[in-house]
């Protein structure tokens, strides 16, 4: 071997020379370690925490991941979070338990929680306090809320660019999407449902913090259903969805997905595809009733009527049926679904997917009477008399008109009217036609993209900027990919034409910023430039209002209908006993999931009302 381990009594004495050498020990703070590039302890030291209280969103992931249970979330009304869906909870750390492992820092989705290089903490207990009270004093001095004032000496940090070192997976697994030039040729669904592998990979990015639940208009059990997918059980997942949403596949395809805006993974990366995951679990269960073992409760003999077979009434019917009521839904058209049937194009929601959800509800024993127009075939007063309670969910069916010159020319249509023609497959041949769509909402996008599929050359004219459009950003992006031009700040002025539409004139408005920080206001004056574009069709998709003509006027007055909305309370109750409203005609947000929520709450309201009637 290399060393000579021969006994030598003198050599150990040579160690004496170290008496005169520089000692190992560092006389802190006079001296400093010369190891690190900065003075003091290491640049990545895991000391006491700091937390940017404004950046923190109170999601509680740090508390959930803490292996020492040292973190509790405590509400503070004084913190003012910057983000839309942030909560007012902030982490409080018990340093009697903290083991400084930094797993909380690794998982913090905003990067607000960091660790500093501070590690010395002393306090002077009041010596006069009783011994029994000492533990309390000690506890008080070792439990505190970290904030930026505590330390300006960052140690172990995970900066925003440091995504690889975080324990969150920020990269979204996108579903397969047909390329723009192919999808614009047909009405076939172009976003493919996740495969099992893709769904599980995407679901496994969920932190389970539930920030999405509060953003959802009907507070679905989102973390639970995503977790079930990650476990590989779409049936359990659908069970969770069904507790608060009986139209899972429809919402899985076309929901406005507020939840994804709130998703904490989206703060530094891409949010979870919550909507597509719901579509995955719904499309992987063939028969909802069979798989989820859904049974109606024993009939209690009470009869309910719902007017309009849209999402609000279907949800109302489903939850009321499960409470034991006999429900009859009246629908003026020949098919149920309302706006989902006649408004949403097939490339977003194929009709068989729509009918799968609706049939699952109707098969529960709910009577659907189509082609019955209330107010004409049956008077509304009769309904009120014949049924124990009546729910109205007829939605917004009266489109707004442009109120400009030339709008009565053939070739000018309202968005919903056009979509109905498209869905009935009665739309005119648009091959090579010039088309102008006015509006920036989802209906405008549906009209424009359907027209592209019918062969038209489409221009969208919107009075504000693209970023201000109320439509889903991905709808706008996909529309542009399909070759649709968007004109910003365009205010319609006049439609020219002899027998039909020939030209469309608009003014380029100047946008006045809103002092409150809202969307800018378009202003048109005499100096605004005017432009004309050739047009064979002009479609106005600028919103719609409820049509309550089927109600007698005294009822309209009594419930306080102002032409736009019916005021209701949380349970959909109106001023008339036994009359409930829900869906777009009373909701603040006008989308399917809000309507489902209104229907579910109204079913509860009906139950409360009829229980108190006895």
């Amino acid at each position, binding site marked *: *071997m*290399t*060393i*000579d*381990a*021969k*006994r*030598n*009594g003198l*050599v*150990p004495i*040579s*160690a004496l020379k170290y008496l005169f050498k520089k000692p*190992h*020990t560092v006389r802190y703070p006079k001296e400093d*370690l010369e*190891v*690190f*590039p900065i003075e003091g*302890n*290491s*640049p*990545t*030291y*895991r000391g006491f925490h700091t937390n940017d209280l404004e950046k923190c969103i109170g999601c509680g992931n740090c508390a*959930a*991941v803490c*292996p*020492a249970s040292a973190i509790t979330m405590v509400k503070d009304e004084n913190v003012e979070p910057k983000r839309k869906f942030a909560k007012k909870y902030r982490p409080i750390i018990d340093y009697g338990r903290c*083991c*400084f*492992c*930094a*797993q909380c820092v*690794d*998982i913090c989705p905003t990067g607000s929680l960091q*660790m500093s290089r501070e590690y010395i903490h002393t306090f002077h207990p009041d010596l006069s306090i009783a011994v029994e009270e000492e533990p309390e004093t000690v506890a008080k001095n070792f439990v505190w809320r970290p904030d930026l004032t505590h330390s300006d000496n960052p*140690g*172990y940090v995970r900066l925003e660019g440091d995504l*690889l*070192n975080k*324990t*969150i*997976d920020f*990269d979204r697994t996108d579903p397969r999407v047909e390329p723009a030039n192919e999808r614009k040729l047909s009405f076939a669904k172009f976003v493919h449902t996740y495969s099992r592998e893709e769904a599980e990979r995407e*679901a*496994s*990015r*969920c*932190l*389970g913090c539930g920030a999405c639940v509060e953003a959802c208009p009907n507070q679905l059990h989102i973390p639970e259903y995503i*977790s079930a997918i*990650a*476990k590989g059980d779409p049936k359990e997942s659908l069970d969770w969805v069904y507790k608060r949403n009986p139209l899972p596949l429809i919402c899985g395809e076309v929901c406005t997905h507020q939840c994804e805006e709130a998703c904490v993974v989206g703060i530094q990366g891409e949010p979870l595809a919550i909507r597509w995951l719901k579509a995955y679990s719904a499309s992987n269960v063939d028969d909802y009733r069979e798989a989820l073992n859904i049974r109606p409760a024993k009939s209690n003999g009470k009869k309910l009527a719902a007017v309009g077979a849209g999402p609000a009434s279907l949800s109302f019917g489903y939850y009321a049926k499960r409470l034991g009521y006999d429900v009859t839904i009246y629908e003026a058209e020949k098919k149920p679904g309302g706006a989902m049937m006649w408004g949403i194009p097939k490339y977003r929601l194929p009709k068989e997917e729509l009918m799968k959800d609706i049939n699952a509800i109707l098969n529960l024993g709910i009577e659907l009477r189509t082609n019955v127009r209330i107010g004409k075939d049956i008077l509304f007063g009769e309904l009120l008399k014949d049924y124990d309670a009546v729910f109205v969910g007829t939605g917004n069916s009266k489109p707004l008109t442009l109120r400009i010159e030339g709008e009565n020319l053939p070739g000018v249509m309202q968005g919903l009217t056009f979509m109905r023609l498209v869905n009935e497959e009665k739309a005119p041949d648009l091959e090579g036609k010039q088309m102008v769509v006015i509006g920036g909402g989802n209906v405008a996008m549906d009209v424009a993209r359907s027209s592209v599929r019918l062969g038209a050359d489409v221009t969208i004219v919107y009075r504000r900027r693209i970023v201000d459009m109320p439509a889903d950003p991905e709808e706008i992006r996909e529309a542009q990919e399909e070759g649709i031009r968007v004109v910003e700040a365009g205010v319609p002025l006049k439609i020219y034409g002899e027998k039909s539409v020939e030209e469309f004139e608009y003014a380029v408005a100047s946008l006045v910023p809103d002092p409150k920080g809202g969307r800018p206001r378009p202003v048109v004056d005499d100096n605004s430039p005017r432009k004309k574009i050739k047009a064979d069709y002009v479609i106005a998709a600028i919103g719609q209002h409820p049509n309550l003509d089927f109600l007698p006027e005294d009822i309209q007055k009594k419930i306080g209908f102002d032409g736009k909305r019916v005021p209701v309370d949380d349970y959909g109750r109106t001023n008339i006993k036994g009359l409930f409203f829900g869906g777009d005609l009373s909701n603040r947000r006008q989308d399917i999931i809000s309507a489902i929520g209104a229907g579910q709450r109204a079913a509860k309201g009906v139950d409360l009302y009829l229980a108190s009637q006895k």
Partner: protein
Amino acid sequence: MELRPLNVSSKSKYKTYELFIGPNHPGIEGNFSYVLDMDGHKVAQVTPDPGLLHRGFEKLMERRLWTQNLALIPRICVPEPDINEVAYCMGVEHLAGIEVPKRAQYIRVIVLELARMGAFLFGFGGLGGATGLYTAPNWAFGDRDYILDLFEWLTGGRVYHIYQYPGGVKNDIPEGWLDKLSELLDYFESRLPEYDKLIFKNPIIQRRTKGVGYLSAEDAIENGITGPNLRASGVKWDIRKAQPYLVYDELDFDIPITGDGDAFARALQRRYEMAESIKILRQCIKQIPDGPHRVKIPNPFQFRVPAGAYYSKVESSKGEFGYYLVSNGDVKPYRVYVRGPSYSVSLFYAQKAMVGMRIEDVPVWIHTMDICPPDFDR
């Protein structure tokens, strides 16, 4: 157990008696102790008392997420915590089928070898403590602090690094760290001859250790003894060579064998292996490739390890250190079993080995066997 301080015999008052070594005794860590039945100066019977602190690591792990456990397990072995992290991560990666990037594997080897050196320095120091040469622990613990400084820079913590993560390591090596490591290795190379002079050529140490606690190769294998203790008895067995893990098969190093099987050989064995560790680290600094230091795995709340069982092991400074992981496919382990190298030595072989030994040789035996009570109270 009822305390019987002395067993009075008929002939002499102190002919036979009962003696406690530990807890809190030079040479013993934790709550572990030996109850020695003495016959004069000689040990007649040995009863190990594991202390039964019931730290319950294995049970605690079943209640925590797979990655949460990484904050817990370094505490199983205090002098060399990284072996826990690496063995655990390697097991999880095997079950989940995760491929670890080359750079991460090199970083793991660097961490393991540095930790091994730190643990060996503990060993030198301990030998000094057991024989009365207190300069040795002062030197060794001081030098070990330089290793801890580097760990602090790399991981943010001095002793419990919590640095490994399934799929790699938590963060990349900071800029300038490898240069500092290189400087440290130069320093250690200059220090090793000093240690030789102070400890290994020292006639007193040699007299106290040579021929003490002889362990034959057959006995070592029979009693499940691994690591430097086994090699000091002349058996060439090292997991790093025999069943290479990480990138040990890309590194050129020897397995030194002393072979005498006594306490001196065991101490000297560690001194040789320290030189090999320096050699390995130098190669790592030269060969470490660029690239990612980890691959992404699902977040802690959704990280499900596929059902199965796997025994992953590493060569620690004491011998084979292993984790037997059982998963039922959930976010938490179903069962984890920790195999520490001291388990068979200190609880079973000690009952045989120490019989007939003089009382002053007991701490020397304990120390050169590098007994670490956390290995069996886990």
